[in-house]
C-alpha cells in the first residue's frame, strides 16, 4: 500500500448471502484498486457490476467477505476512517423537514464541528454549491439538482480529503450536471481526491484522471484515461479558417506519401448536444 494512497482496495471479494431457497450472490470478486491522493478516479461499469458495493465497503457500510479496504491508511472497518471522507450517495434524500442550512449544521455537528466555525463553513458550502438563495427553504421543496448539490455540500462540510460520489449527475439536467462536473474539477484543483462512479461516460471522460472499468464484479480495464482512449495509430489535426486550396494540398500530400498512410475523414467538427443545450438555455436567460 502506497503511503499517499487515498483509497486502497486489496483483493476485495463481497458475497451476499441468499434468502431462503436462493443461492449466494458474488457482487465483487478479487478486486484491487489504488486511488492516489489528489486524483479524480472514475469507476465505471454496467448496472450490477459491483461499483456501488465496492463504494459501500470502502465507506464501512458493508463488510468485506474477503480482502480489505482502507482510506488514507485507516481500515474502512474503523469509524475513524470516516474523518477524511465525504460521501454523496446516488439520488440522496435528506430530512425534508430541515432547511438547507439546518441540514448542513446537522451534518457538521455529527463531525464534531460547532459554533461560529460551523456556521461559517455551512455558509461557504452553500455559496460553493450555489444554494445560498435556497438556504432557508425546507429540503422537501428542493429539485433533484439542488438535492444533489446539497449532497455535495454535506459531503464537504467537514473538509474531507476524499470525496466518494455515487452517480453524482444521475437524473440531473444538463445545467445542473455541468455545475457538478465543474465542482469536481475545482475539488481536484484544491487537492481533494475524488472517487466517482457514473454511467455517463462522456462526463467521466471530462473529469477523470484515471478510470477503472468493472464488469460482473471484476476489474476488466484500468489506467490513465488518456492512455486508455488514445488510438495509437491515428493522428488528429483541427484547422481553423483553412482555405479549400490548403485542404487540397494536404490531401495531395497524404496521397503522395504512400505506404499505409491514409486520410480517413475530413469535414467540420461537430459540437456536442450538451454544449448546444447549454448555449441555447443560457441565451434564453440573457435579458
Amino acid at each position, binding site marked *: 500500500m502506497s503511503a499517499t494512497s487515498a483509497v486502497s482496495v486489496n483483493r476485495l471479494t463481497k458475497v451476499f448471502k441468499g434468502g431462503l431457497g436462493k443461492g449466494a450472490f458474488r457482487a465483487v470478486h478479487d478486486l484491487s484498486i489504488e486511488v492516489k491522493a489528489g486524483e479524480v478516479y472514475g469507476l465505471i461499469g454496467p448496472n450490477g457490476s459491483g461499483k456501488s458495493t465496492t463504494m459501500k465497503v470502502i465507506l464501512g457500510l458493508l463488510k468485506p467477505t474477503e480482502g480489505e479496504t482502507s482510506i488514507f491508511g485507516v481500515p474502512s472497518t474503523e*469509524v*475513524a476512517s*470516516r474523518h477524511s471522507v465525504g460521501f454523496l450517495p446516488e439520488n440522496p434524500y435528506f*430530512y425534508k423537514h430541515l432547511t438547507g442550512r*439546518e441540514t448542513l449544521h446537522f451534518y457538521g455537528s455529527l463531525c464534531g464541528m460547532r459554533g461560529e466555525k460551523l456556521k461559517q463553513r455551512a455558509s461557504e458550502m452553500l455559496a460553493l454549491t450555489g444554494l445560498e438563495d435556497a438556504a432557508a427553504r425546507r429540503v422537501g421543496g428542493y429539485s433533484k439538482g439542488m438535492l444533489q448539490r446539497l449532497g455535495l455540500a454535506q459531503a464537504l462540510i467537514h473538509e474531507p480529503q476524499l470525496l466518494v460520489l455515487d452517480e453524482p449527475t444521475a437524473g440531473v439536467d444538463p445545467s445542473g450536471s455541468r455545475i457538478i462536473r465543474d465542482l469536481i474539477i475545482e475539488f481536484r484543483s*484544491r487537492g481533494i481526491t475524488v472517487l466517482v462512479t457514473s454511467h455517463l461516460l462522456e462526463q467521466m471522460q471530462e473529469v477523470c484522471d484515471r478510470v477503472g472499468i468493472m464488469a460482473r464484479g471484476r476489474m476488466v480495464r484500468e489506467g490513465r484515461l488518456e492512455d486508455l482512449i488514445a488510438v495509437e495509430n491515428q493522428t488528429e489535426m483541427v484547422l481553423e479558417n483553412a482555405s479549400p486550396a490548403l485542404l487540397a494540398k494536404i490531401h495531395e500530400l497524404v496521397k503522395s506519401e504512400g505506404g499505409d498512410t491514409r486520410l480517413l475523414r475530413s469535414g467540420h467538427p461537430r459540437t456536442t448536444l450538451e454544449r448546444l443545450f447549454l448555449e441555447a438555455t443560457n441565451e434564453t436567460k440573457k435579458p
Partner: protein
Amino acid sequence: MSDAPPTSAAARTPPVRFSPRRVWTLAMATLTQLMRMKILPFLLLFCVLVVGLGFGFSVINPEQQLNQLKTVSLAALQVFSIVIGVVSTALLLPKDLEDRTLYTILSKPVPRFDYLLGKLLGVLMLIGAGLIIMDAVLSLILWTQQSMLLDAALSHLRLEKQDSPEVVAQVREIVARQGLTWNLHWAVWAIFLKASVVTTVALLLSCIASSTLFTIVITFCVTIIGHGEALIREFLFQPHLGSMAKRIATLALAAICPDLAQFDIVDSVVNGEVVPWAAVYDMTGIAVLYMTVYLFVTHLIFVEKEL
C-alpha cells in the same frame, strides 16, 4: 479546505469514541423531524378530546367524577405514549435506510451505537414532551374540577343543613384524595417508563424487520404479552400443565418480553392510593434495566447489519 493531501493520515487520525454531543445532535434532529411531521399536536388533540369525554359520563358524586376523569385521561396517555413510541420508532430507521439518509450519516465519523441512541432519545424526548404537556393540562383540569366540586358539595351540605365540621372534613378529605396529588405525576412517570421500554423493543425489532408494518404489529404483540407476564409465570410454575414444547415456548416468551405490569400503578392512583417512593425507584430501575438490555442487543444486531 486544505490544499495539500495528507501523507500520514493513518498515524494522526484520532479514534472515534462515544460522544454525548453527537447523540444529542441526532436526538434533536429526530425530535425536530417528528415535531414538524405534526405527530405531537395531532395526538395531543386526540388526548384532549378523550379528556373532554371524561366529563360526559353521568355523575353520582364528586369522588366518582374525579375518578372517571383520571381513569379516562390516564388511559388516553397510555395509548398516546405507546402508539407514538412504536409508530415513530418503526418508521424512523427503515425510512433513513430507504432514503439513504443513513448512508450519509454513517459515512461520517458516527459510531452506529451513537446513531441508535440518538434516534431512541429523540423519540423518548417527544413522548416526554407530550406527557409533560398533558400532565400539566390534566393537573389544571383536575385542580379546577376539584375546587368546583368541593364548592358544590359544601353548598349542597349547607342547603341540607348537614354541614357539621366532621362531615365537611370528611368531604374535603375524599375530594382531596381523588383530586390533584403527587400520585398523578407518578402515574404519568410510570406511563413514560412503560412507553420507553416498549419504544426500545420497537427499535430492536426495526433492526431485524424488513417492513415497518411487521415492526408495529410485533411490537404491539410484545406489548400485549408483556401485560400478561404474571399469567405466563403462573403457567410456568405449574409443573403438571402443558407439554415440554409449550413450556419451552412460554419460557422463551417470558424471557424475551418485558414485564409491563411492573409499571401498572394507574389503577392504584385512580383509586386514590398513595404510591410509595420505593415503588417509584423500583419501576425506574426495572425500566432502565430493560432498556439497557434491549439497547445492547439492538447494538449487537445493528453493528453487524449490512446497509
